[in-house]
């Protein structure tokens, strides 16, 4: 997404004849209940090369790699290491086979030190000696030129440093095949470049790397081979040098021409619905901006740069300092004191199952969750009417399965998001906070969500918090770039230069 400064030393690394693959999957299939996560996948990984695994969220990349890492067990097919079929019952076997994985959500124990985390499961002896552990890890880190204090507690480290720890783990275990699951999601552009250089060095030491991403430019920049995964199937492998255009790659990835332009008619912009004046605290410093009815303001930035805090302060999950946040021209406290269920603010959170819905309740109850005031007369709750309206919404947004008695956890990500959207729009909001609204959605769902949001501009202003720059450019009128709890820039999308400026700002580079 961001401007990538990494260029690889060698443009093309040809694969010498007769090199044996270190790892290969042979017709591997994996099901979760009814869901088919991977379908008869066959793929080879060669030593000293970087294989990129490209695919949308939910295309089955992580599942596939988790099988390599021994976390899951394939239902059909098998895995071969050095041409010998292996059967991983636990991560232990995979590690023993020299396969190491860095998960998207780091697998680190916060309350333990770096050294302890790196050596976890690799201590060798029953009795351990903390000092000696620190020494070993420290030496290792130096050997690879990674500067990190082995005695530090994970909870005190930044995301980038945590990733280094994860990498140290793999190095310590001397894994030959390193799998990285969306490693750049939490990194600033600099860190990304550092990481890529590190990865490249490793391949030169003969390690093979599998690099999972859904970001085209990264893949093109880094990979020796690109395998595209769609809907659990391997869409084919290709050579980055053979790639003519991103859009072609993209279309192969998503299976159809990506909608590059959404129909965004202009709506007239009127009074502000959100105003933030000199908001400092909660890890934010001096935030100033406003969202007006009829416009979409996107907040972009690397994850963990204060977007969460901003959203929570706005949506009332945590309390901002007095007279900093004004919603619909009312001070925060006053607004939440007397906010009504409808014609007010609504919040579409990133965490759909944990926060936006009740996982064990049916559609009706989930509709009622935020709209209950609308269905209550006195102390009573009019469930009959709620059921009717639920049915209407299910039809209108075609939420599958069409039953009102389906429980939240039974819905697929896309349908769940549609349901949340349906509910929140049902409230005729004047101000919408949408957080990663399309994360993990397939293209059609994404398209729908985008259009819904654009239509919503007629009645409301929208604060869009997203990690997907493309989304921001598509929808927003203004893009606010966050870095270390500050807003470094407020850029209008109408200007061409904008897309170019964002990258450096995300990295904190202001000129």
């Amino acid at each position: 997404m961001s401007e990538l400064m990494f260029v690889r030393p060698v443009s093309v690394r040809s694969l010498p004849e007769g090199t044996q693959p270190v790892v290969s999957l042979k017709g591997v299939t994996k099901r979760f209940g009814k869901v088919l996560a991977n379908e008869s996948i066959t793929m080879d990984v060669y030593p000293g090369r970087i294989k990129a695994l490209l695919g949308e969220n939910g295309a089955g990349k992580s599942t596939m790699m988790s099988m390599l890492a021994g976390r899951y067990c394939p239902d059909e097919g098998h895995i071969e290491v050095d041409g010998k079929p292996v059967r991983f019952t636990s991560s232990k076997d995979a590690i023993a086979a020299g396969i190491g994985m860095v998960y998207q959500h780091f697998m680190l124990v916060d309350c333990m030190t770096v050294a302890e985390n790196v050596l976890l499961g690799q201590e060798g002896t029953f009795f351990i000696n903390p000092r000696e552990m620190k020494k070993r890890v420290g030496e290792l880190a130096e050997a690879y030129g990674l500067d990190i204090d082995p005695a530090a507690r994970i909870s005190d480290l930044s995301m980038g440093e945590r990733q280094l720890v994860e990498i140290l783990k793999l190095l310590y275990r001397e894994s030959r095949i390193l799998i990285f699951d969306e490693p750049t999601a939490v990194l600033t552009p600099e860190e990304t470049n550092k990481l890529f250089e590190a990865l490249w060095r490793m391949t030169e030491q003969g390690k093979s790397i599998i690099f999972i991403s859904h970001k085209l430019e990264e893949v093109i920049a880094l990979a020796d081979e690109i395998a595209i995964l769609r809907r659990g199937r391997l869409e084919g492998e290709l050579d980055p040098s053979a790639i003519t255009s991103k859009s072609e790659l993209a279309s192969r990835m998503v299976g159809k021409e990506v909608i590059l332009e959404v129909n965004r008619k202009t709506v007239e912009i009127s009074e502000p619905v959100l105003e933030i004046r000199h908001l400092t605290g909660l890890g934010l410093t001096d935030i100033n901006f406003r969202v007006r009815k009829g416009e979409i303001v996107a907040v972009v930035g690397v994850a963990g740069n204060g977007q969460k805090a901003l959203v929570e302060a706005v949506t009332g999950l945590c309390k901002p300092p007095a007279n900093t946040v004004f919603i619909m021209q009312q001070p925060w406290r006053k607004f939440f004191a007397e906010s009504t269920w409808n014609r007010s603010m609504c919040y579409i959170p990133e965490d759909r199952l944990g926060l936006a819905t009740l996982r064990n309740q049916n559609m009706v109850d989930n509709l009622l969750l935020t709209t209950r005031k609308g269905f209550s007369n006195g102390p009573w709750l009019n469930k009959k009417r709620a059921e009717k309206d639920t049915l209407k919404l299910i039809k209108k947004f075609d939420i599958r399965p069409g039953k009102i008695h389906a429980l939240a956890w039974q819905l697929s990500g896309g349908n769940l998001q549609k349901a949340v959207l349906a509910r929140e729009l049902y409230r005729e909001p004047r101000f919408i906070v949408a957080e990663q609204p399309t994360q993990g959605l397939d293209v059609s769902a994404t398209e729908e969500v985008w259009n819904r949001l654009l239509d919503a501009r007629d009645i409301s202003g929208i604060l869009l918090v997203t990690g997907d720059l493309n989304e921001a450019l598509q929808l927003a009128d203004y893009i606010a770039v966050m870095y270390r709890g500050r807003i470094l820039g407020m850029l209008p999308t109408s200007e061409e230069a904008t897309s170019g400026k964002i990258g450096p700002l995300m990295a904190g580079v202001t000129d």
Partner: protein
Amino acid sequence: MPLTIIKRDEPWKWGALVIFLGALLFCLAVSAALLAGQGKDALHGLYVLWLGSFGNLWALEGALLKAIPLFLCSLGVAVAFRMQIWNIGAEGQFALGAIGATWMSLLFPDLPRLILLPLMFMMAFLLGGIWAFIPAFLKLKLRVNEIISTLMLNYIAILLLDFLVFGVWKDPASFGFPMTPEFTQGAIIPTIGDSRVHWGLLFCLIVGVGLWAFMRFTRLGFELQASGEGARVAKYAKIRYGMLVMFVMFLSGGLAGWAGCVETSAILNRLQPSLMVGYGYTAIVVAWLARLEPLNIAFASFLLAALRVGVENMQLELQIPAAFGVIMEGIILLTVLAGQFFLLYKLERKHSS
């Protein structure tokens, strides 16, 4: 061919019932084994148990009587558990309820029944509620674990009861034995017709249905269930979680308090230490067996009460130790807990790869 665990994508219809019955059977089997271990004829033993619990009218009557306080306590426990508030202090709240009721009856012995009884119920609810409110408050303000605080408050409540009946409230005519004076007629819940069952039964019915309706049809009830999914969701939905926790605990304590009130007023007709026979703890078993559903609780509490009564018959006929019933309770609960696994998962033959 090894079995693998598969998550169900559809919840298992009637699964809960199947599991409950299974647990019941298992428990019967184990107890039969225990009997055999004692050199008793197992089948005959179970038969005696059956007679003692359901075999005749008086047994049922006894069970019904015992079920009343259990039912009320369990309702209290259930509402709290619904919100993931682990209130295991029903025992203490029960005691406080009894104290409250007694206090009123000693204060205004001469009031007519129609005024005095409501007064007693009010005070019982109030004291019980307050007793449960303390842990709720500590939990919210100081993050004090409610499991421990409610538990400790049980002990304190019982000792408080002791203190009262051994001291200030002791009946001068009781030759110094630990008991309050007998209640006046106005303070006693009358019995239904000539049976031994008292009108507390009807009261339970009303409370039960009322609570069910509250959970099902009111906004507060809905908010209560929603908050059961966690404080953050509640906050997202603009539900005032803190208030709700306090309210629920107060309600829960009050219900247990009512149980205490009914027991003192209708059964003992006075306050004495022997009031405390552990209803508060059995209530937790009942509540969980009933999956926190008010209507199931009615059945579960009757069942466990009948079990307790039946065990007495076993004692009389076969000299089985009294603890027998408690063991059965424990086993049923453990089995049900283990069984609930199959509500979410199922075992399937692995497809060989």
